[in-house]
């Protein structure tokens, strides 16, 4: 992309094509011979990482679309069927859902890198603005993608975000109706979001081409912030940059795989495993983590229109960055003040993100306002002012000089790596100790399925199934589980014949027959567990006005706040068991009488661990209620443990396969990363 190439293929067939379409020359000049600065550090590999993520998201997305149904009544179920029934569907869905988070993580690193090294400055303004456009498109795509599973957070996130447009004076309401295609978020909204979610990634890919084009015209910036002048300043893209990018990508894949295989729900919200319900707002609506800083800005301003304007300004202001920061020195390495303010700004963004996830009350609102001011002050006051008052340190004469002087900095780099390792170790150690339990936080329990090698306890699954069948199934459905699943690998371990016999005990409504009548027949393995009530209204009417929830996803649809710093430790310990802890605690948390001074409404029961403590479900389990064949104790604690294990399996039937494949992928990726690292060392040996 930098002018006509003098590359000539030697193969006659390629020559023939090249004369008519000089595509090989284009590729050669853009990705082989293209000169890259020799002093690029690993922060520059995030460009390649982002290209890979975009390709992966498009690939997994196109595949998921083959199995997904964009209809308000079917979308939630179709996503569950992808995860449960499609071959490797769980893998594809996790790759796509975690991939969105990884994509944003990488783009934030990429943007902060540009900010630190002044990559937006002359002559790279257009390159930077194209990047901001890609970021905006990513936000729109990510938002619409999050709506597609049609869970509670999907629905209410869509409601809140589309309502932002109602803040526009005069035409706001009409615009919102236009976006919805109805009088509220509904099926037409879901349909068009699906269409746009499919379209926008290709638009992003188009803008990425422009982005790369602009990059190849202006040339890459580099840590020294001085332009490449001579041959000595650069190395050819291939093999130097290619192999370095490969190593960066392989390290990033390890990070990505940690989420895919071991904590797919860490970045999600438990509420999104509850199907969308237009009649109930979740107590606490939070967007995905990558929008949180902007959400915090939106909420910190008490006026609706001003809040929306501030939120959009926070992004649009990035477009003006090249002109707000008029300092001539590019890299913050040589700008002592700008460097400090940059890190303050990073902290401000992270803190805003944290505030965005907290309820909008008290101290959080005030802190949000202060940080919002800091955010805008960085762009509107600090950067323009620094350009005028700061005395930068002298920049190196050339990139080659920078490389020579850098060999001295190696010790510091090594020290910082050691420090990072020590900190990670400290976090890990801290996580084992700080498991202090508050009063109504469910107590942490030991689960056989936790951790990287977790497996279900077959005996526990079989006992749990018995508890469900004899107790829970009187009121709770289990809609996503078929009898055939009982014989699935990684499940309760029944044979197909046993599963068929289990199914035959049930009466399943079928029909209509030739006379047009419905009839009952014995269950078959392909049938699903029949619900206890014919419809939701009947279930509600029989249970004091509130239908008992379906249990298939219960252990993923419930949880509790782990809080800071616990959630940081959870990343290292792969803690994913909020749901099971909560479910098990609820089953054991009933008390005959509320404690003194606490009153609960009539028709409810006191439960220590239920939010608000007044639960409509009466105490379901009592000692001795279910008899186990294997001699396990007939106690409430045992029942609760077993039925929770069973419900964890119904929510995550491929957990064992996921963790097994995860181990293989990790072994492969670590070996691959090592190979890439040593290859890179060899290739670069003569360049340093």
């Amino acid at each position, binding site marked *: 992309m930098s002018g006509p190439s003098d590359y000539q293929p030697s193969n006659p067939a390629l020559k023939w094509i090249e004369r008519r379409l000089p595509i090989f020359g284009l590729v050669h000049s853009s990705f082989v011979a293209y000169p890259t600065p020799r002093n690029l550090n690993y922060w520059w590999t995030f460009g390649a990482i982002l290209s890979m993520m975009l390709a992966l998201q498009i690939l997994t997305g196109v595949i998921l679309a083959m199995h997904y149904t964009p209809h308000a009544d079917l979308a939630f179920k179709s996503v569950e069927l992808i995860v449960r029934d499609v071959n490797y569907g769980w893998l594809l869905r996790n790759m796509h859902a975690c991939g969105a988070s990884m994509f944003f993580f990488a783009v934030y690193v990429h943007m902060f890198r540009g900010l630190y090294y002044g990559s937006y400055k002359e002559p790279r303004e257009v390159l930077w603005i194209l990047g901001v456009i890609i970021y905006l498109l990513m936000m729109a795509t990510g938002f619409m993608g999050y709506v597609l599973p049609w869970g509670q957070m999907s629905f*209410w996130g869509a*409601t*809140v975000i*589309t*309502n*932002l447009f*109602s803040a526009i004076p005069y035409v706001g309401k009409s615009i919102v*109706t*236009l*976006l*919805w*295609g*109805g*009088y*509220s*978020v*509904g099926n*037409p909204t879901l349909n*068009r979001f699906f269409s746009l979610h499919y379209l926008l990634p290709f638009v992003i890919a188009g803008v990425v081409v422009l982005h790369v084009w602009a990059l190849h015209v202006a040339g890459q910036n580099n840590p020294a912030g001085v332009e490449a002048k001579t041959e000595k300043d650069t190395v050819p893209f291939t093999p130097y940059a290619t192999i370095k990018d490969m190593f960066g990508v392989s390290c990033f894949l390890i990070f990505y795989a940690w989420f895919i295989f071991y904590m797919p729900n860490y970045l999600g919200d438990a509420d999104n495993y509850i199907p969308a319900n*237009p*009649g*109930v*707002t*979740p*107590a*606490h*609506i939070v967007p995905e983590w990558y929008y949180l800083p902007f959400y915090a800005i939106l*909420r910190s301003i*008490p*006026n*609706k*229109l001003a*809040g929306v304007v501030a939120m959009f300004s926070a992004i649009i202001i990035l477009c003006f960055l090249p002109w707000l920061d008029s300092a001539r020195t590019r890299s913050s390495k040589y700008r002592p003040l700008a460097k400090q303010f940059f890190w303050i700004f990073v902290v401000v963004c992270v803190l805003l993100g944290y505030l965005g996830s907290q*309820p*909008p*009350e008290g101290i959080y609102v005030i802190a949000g306002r202060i940080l919002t001011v800091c955010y805008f002050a960085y762009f509107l006051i600090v950067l323009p002012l620094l350009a005028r008052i700061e005395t930068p340190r002298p920049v190196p004469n050339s990139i080659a000089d920078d490389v020579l002087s850098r060999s001295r900095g190696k010790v510091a780099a090594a020290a910082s790596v050691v420090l990072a390792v020590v900190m990670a170790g400290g976090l890990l150690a801290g996580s084992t100790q700080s498991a202090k339990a508050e009063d109504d936080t469910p107590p942490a329990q030991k689960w056989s399925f936790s951790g990287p090698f977790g497996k279900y306890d077959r005996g526990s699954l079989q006992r749990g199934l018995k508890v469900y069948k004899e107790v829970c199934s009187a009121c709770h459905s289990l809609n996503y589980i078929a009898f055939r699943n009982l014989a699935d690998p990684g499940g309760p371990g029944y044979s197909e014949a046993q599963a068929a016999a289990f199914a035959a005990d049930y009466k399943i409504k079928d029909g209509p027959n030739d006379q047009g009548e419905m009839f009952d027949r014995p269950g078959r393995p392909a049938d699903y567990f029949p619900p206890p009530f014919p419809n939701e209204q009947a279930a509600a009417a029989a249970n004091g006005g509130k239908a008992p929830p379906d249990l298939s996803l219960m252990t993923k649809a419930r949880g509790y706040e782990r809080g800071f710093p616990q959630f940081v430790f959870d990343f290292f310990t792969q803690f994913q068991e909020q749901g099971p802890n909560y479910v098990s605690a609820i089953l054991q948390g009933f008390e005959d009488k509320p404690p003194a001074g606490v009153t609960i409404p009539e028709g409810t029961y006191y439960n220590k661990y239920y939010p608000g403590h007044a639960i409509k479900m009466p105490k379901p389990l009592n000692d001795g209620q279910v008899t186990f064949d294997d001699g396990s104790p007939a106690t409430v604690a045992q029942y609760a443990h077993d039925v929770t294990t069973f419900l964890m399996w119904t929510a995550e039937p491929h957990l064992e396969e996921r963790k097994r494949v995860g181990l293989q992928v990790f072994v492969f990726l670590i070996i691959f990363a090592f190979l890439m690292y040593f290859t890179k060392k060899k290739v670069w040996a003569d360049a340093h």
Partner: protein
Amino acid sequence: MVGAAATVWPLVTQMNPDAATIAAGAPIEVDLTPIAEGQDIKVFWRGKPIYISHRTKKQIDEAQQAPLSSLKDPEADSARVKAGHDQWLVVIGICTHLGCIPIAHEGNYDGFFCPCHGSQYDSSGRIRQGPAPANLEVPPYTFVSDTKIQIG
């Protein structure tokens, strides 16, 4: 120019509610007899939840006596209910901030509390505290008889 606009118009307006959606949004009738004093029901009209509250004497007094100057979106209680039917408050249960559903009988004003961003409405559905810019909207409705209303 006219041709271009005429071509673009169908491409844009197709996004508006279609005929079936509009037809499903026809007026509905609601019988008020089962709602006891101090209770409320939620009905859906055009996909929106509508709260119908049978207000207590205390709630009515509070709504009528709140000084207009203390309100963010000043509106007298009498303008928000039908004359002679002071005990019935009918509002669209969608927070005017960002569209969540406020919870009835919660908050400090004997009215509604929105769990999303903390807006609080009084027993007349008027915004009293929090980020919402306006009062809960009153849907178009009429009393067909003393115990029946038609919404829409």
